């Protein structure tokens, strides 16, 4: 049962426009959400995160929105640049109170920025 879902395997956006990547989750115990970016032959790199007590977090061109009632988050990239072409993973963490928990990842969305 997939707890973190990225329903779009790929997304194509024109350079300069807004890219919106979506993520849905089913586990209401998730309280911390992250986005990672991955280039081929490299490990994922952390992009931006949001705690469940917030509904928005912004860092430069990247903004993450969280809608807890809908169990939905989205990543907005404005303006989109060619270097943004990569696979984006949504991830969520459930705080167990007893130590580290690994993140649960979605399957990823391949973002392609077209010139």
């Amino acid at each position, binding site marked *: 049962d997939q707890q973190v879902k990225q329903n779009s395997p790929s997304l194509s956006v024109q350079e300069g426009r807004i890219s919106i990547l979506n993520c849905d989750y089913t586990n209401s115990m998730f309280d911390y959400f*992250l986005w990672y970016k991955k280039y081929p032959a490299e490990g994922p790199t952390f992009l931006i995160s949001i705690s469940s007590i917030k509904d928005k977090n912004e860092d430069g061109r990247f903004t993450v929105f969280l809608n807890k009632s809908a169990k939905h988050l989205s990543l907005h990239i404005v303006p989109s640049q060619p270097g943004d072409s990569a696979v984006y993973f949504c991830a969520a*963490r459930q705080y167990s109170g007893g130590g580290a928990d690994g993140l649960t*990842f979605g399957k990823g969305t391949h973002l392609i920025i077209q010139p």
Partner: protein
Amino acid sequence: DVKVTQSSRYLVKRTGEKVFLECVQDMDHENMFWYRQDPGLGLRLIYFSYDVKMKEKGDIPEGYSVSREKKERFSLILESASTNQTSMYLCASSYDLNSPLHFGNGTRLTVT
């Protein structure tokens, strides 16, 4: 900057071999993780550790074991490699529960 180093970028092993994947982090992080990445399946957690000599099973631990004898090093062991373990293996570490994971560049393992 946090550095997570995986000892091999590419590895080819035969079915039945014992395989060791090594990972070292240089930031004194408490938590370390092993994931595998497969097309269409995203990243799946195999094992993690929140302290030396401590280990916890992730979502897909079958066929794997781990070792954490020192804080900076976390090893993934395939006791008897099988072809369905052909994958990209990613090691990660984090300072605490509320910190992002920092990933290594991955080891692409092929089992023939």
